């Protein structure tokens, strides 16, 4: 059966009086992992999953599994039985009506056809870029076809494609990271990614411990990606806003004029679907424009509570406790080269990556975490020495507040983040201050 016919069959099996929405996803995901400069884990999986939300008399249940064609009938029977005994769910927002969805971008051949040998070749090139160092990381490729259908007659489909190379080079005393992500496997330049990681590791061989305190910073794209994801997940999340847990005040000047943030699931560079888990089409959503908070994002449930419409940001049923999320975040880049941003700093820090970041207070986005894989002291516009990893305790919203963004690079790309790769497309950023609360020694 095709994903389309499977989805329709599931809806057809629902008894009279039941509504349903079904998502069928079929695909392949492969990941080649390396450490100590050799491939130590190498996996691939193929499969088809079916997710059904069934609704009857205001009662709702969600079922999912990898179901064979012969198993569809019993799968639906179990879902129906669960729905009949579910208590009423007054928050059920109803089904998405038939809506046009922009057609999806074809899966690039190089991604669809990437083999274990192809991934191993990229790993080999990454490793070779760091002579005499120890390399670790992964190369991943994946494609999927996803069909959404509901009993209101709305059916849409799309494809996803992703290729990622992420890794570090290590010396006995330092590590440096590199990362590339794209829809197109052949776009990945493993030597360039490996060379950046090796350069950061080499520069970090001799590091100093720095006193805690507030420092001006230049954040590489990986660190900026984590910053904007925390803003997106804890602030621009419509559920957090509805519940009074968000810092977001739509219409207020909460951010620096230079810091423009939007979510755009229709961008051609996005690796994801052009509709959300409720079948609502993606759109370009300005979140921060000219320093002013422009919007939050909503799914159907939270939109109904807020008296607005869904913006196409529903995540899977299991995620609804966390609310709607922006998953295609873009920061409008500046024009500066990263070196020029560094050149403007009298005394500050260059941070390659943040690690293990956790929110302390969602209403102020104060979070704590550490630097990792390349932290450097900037003095008189030049990187002078490596710095041991430092702990920070910092409000992310305040870090990009009015007057705090001193420059943005022209080097925007999909960067890895605390919540994973492929979610934020961001440049290097120079910020007026970042509060470091501890060094490696405590």
């Amino acid at each position: 059966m095709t994903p389309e016919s499977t989805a329709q069959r599931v809806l057809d099996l629902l008894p009279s009086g039941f509504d349903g929405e079904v998502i069928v996803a079929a695909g392949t995901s492969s990941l080649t992992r390396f450490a100590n400069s050799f491939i130590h884990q190498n996996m691939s999986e193929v499969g088809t999953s079916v997710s059904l939300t069934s609704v009857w008399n205001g009662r709702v249940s969600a079922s999912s599994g990898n179901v064979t064609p012969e198993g569809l009938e019993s799968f639906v029977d179990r879902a129906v039985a669960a729905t009949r005994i579910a208590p009423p769910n007054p928050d059920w927002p109803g089904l998405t009506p038939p809506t046009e969805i922009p057609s999806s971008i074809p899966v690039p051949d190089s991604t669809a056809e990437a083999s274990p040998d192809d991934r191993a070749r990229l790993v080999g090139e990454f490793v070779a870029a760091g002579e005499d160092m120890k390399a670790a990381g992964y190369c991943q490729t994946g494609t999927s076809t996803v069909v959404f259908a509901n009993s209101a007659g709305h059916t849409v489909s799309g494809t996803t494609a992703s290729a990622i190379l992420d890794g570090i080079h290590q010396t006995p005393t330092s590590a440096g990271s590199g990362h590339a992500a794209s829809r197109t496997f052949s776009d990945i330049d493993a030597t360039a990614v490996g060379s950046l990681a090796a350069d950061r590791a080499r520069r970090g061989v001799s590091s100093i411990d720095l006193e805690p305190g507030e420092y001006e910073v230049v954040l590489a794209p990986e660190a900026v990606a984590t910053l904007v994801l925390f803003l997106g997940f804890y602030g621009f999340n419509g559920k957090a806003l509805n519940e009074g847990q968000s810092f977001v005040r739509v219409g207020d000047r909460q951010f620096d004029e230079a810091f423009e943030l939007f979510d755009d699931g229709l961008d051609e560079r996005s690796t994801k679907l052009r509709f959300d888990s409720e079948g609502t089409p993606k759109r370009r959503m300005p979140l921060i424009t000219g320093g002013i908070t422009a919007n939050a994002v909503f799914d159907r449930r939270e939109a109904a509570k807020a008296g607005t419409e869904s913006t196409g940001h529903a995540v899977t049923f299991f995620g609804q406790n966390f609310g709607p999320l922006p998953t295609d975040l873009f920061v409008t880049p500046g024009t500066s080269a990263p070196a020029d941003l560094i050149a403007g700093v009298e005394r500050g820090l260059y941070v390659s990556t943040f690690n293990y970041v956790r929110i302390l207070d969602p209403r102020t986005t104060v979070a704590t975490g550490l630097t990792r894989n390349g932290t450097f002291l900037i003095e008189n516009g030049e990187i002078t020495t490596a710095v041991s990893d430092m702990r920070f305790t910092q409000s992310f919203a305040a870090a990009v507040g009015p007057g705090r963004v001193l420059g943005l690079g022209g080097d925007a790309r999909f960067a890895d983040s605390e919540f994973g790769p492929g979610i934020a497309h961001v440049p290097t950023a120079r910020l007026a201050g970042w509060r470091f609360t501890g060094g490696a020694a405590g």
Partner: protein
Amino acid sequence: MFDIASAAVEGAIASGATYADARVIGRKIRDISVQNGDVQAISISEAIGVGVRALYGSSWGFQATDRLTLADAGRAGAQATAIARASTRVPGPPLVLADVPVHQDEFQTRYDEHPLEVSAEEQAGLLVESTRLMLEEPNVAIAIGQLGFWDVDSWLVSSQGHRIHQNLIHSGGGLQAMSIGDGETQVRTYPQSRVHYESAGYEAIRKWDYLAEAPRIAAESAALLTAAEMDECEKPLILDGSQLALQIHESVGHAIELDRILGWEAAFAGTSHLQLPELGRHRYGSDLMNITADATLPGALGSFGYDDEGTPAQSVPIVENGIWVGVLSGRDSASIAGLPPGGMVRADGYNRLPMVRMTNVGLLPGDSSLDQMIAATDDGILMSTNRSWSIDDRRLNFQFGCEIGWEIKNGERGRMLKNPTYTGITPRFWGTLDMLAGESERVFWGTPNCGKGQPVQVGRTGHPAMPARFAGVRMGVRG
């Protein structure tokens, strides 16, 4: 299902693998969540498939499929070998798996009441009533209840003759009361932060008596809105058992994973501050610190009969009288390190590689009590229930926040404190452990959400812990 797993192994061996193992894993999960008296989700997830791992030369390959026919399983085995062959393009040192006894056996989690045989209606009803009780406190804006139940069957076959079927039953859940004040949120949870799970049936939910505790956590979350903020200080810190469980998980459990020590997780989860030449000599903490990794504890979340390589569950000493003596390992990592395999390799479902995971990593009890610790403290802080956690990639530099704290003055619990945090360096912190509660206050805390590996795998770990006092700790660091 043994025939499917056998076909996968045979497919791998026929294609040139020198060793192969395969797991058919079928998992049924029921999750229920309720917010403010309304059911948010009743979710049922059922997944089954086969994953096969092949060793070719010194390189591994793994293929998973949800097509459960003998032919598809055989093809998956052949593909696993092909992937292992591709791995040899960037090869590692020679690998010989550590020997383990070959078992053909069954294992079943002990339970009184199968959680999936209790109706979802009854389970949701418990949460509806619990959240309504929390909302009786006027300051509580968000009251959440969650329950989750796992019923997992696995059939393991290896080319060395392993043939093991296990059925693991896990039950857990929790409550959360959130009060929202002027520019702040305050949270209290029960039984612990987020959720608490056990290897048990529905009796594991009944015994925690959510209805009795819901009003207490609601009242505490409201009281925190007007509680004093904690000042930055350095003084004795008393942790409750659930926070100590988190402390063990982050600063001991991950640090003793042999794959991290060997550098296999360097790019993602991280490495470890521990170095193998220091095993048996490194001082991890004070003499009161005795830690085991014990997969045999009845009811603890990290218990099983055999790990996913077929090694029997066992209790392994990790820290003895403050000295580091053991690691968490599997057959390949143990062989490389020259240590006996610990039987701690697990896979998060049929479509994931088995990897080193915590079992039940926890403290052996001391001879004190929470009341005695408070009475013996002139000027200190008591903290309860984790709210935030962050630790570096070597598991050395940590900062943890708790939901609630209290001043301890002259041997008595004083005023409530909001937003308490503490920070430290792992061996220095454990070195200040000077009082430890006894067996009567030990709980097998269960954490169902330990992330590790790429693709990310979610592990389910247990942490026996009880209240403890640390002599001098830096607290109250803020941004």
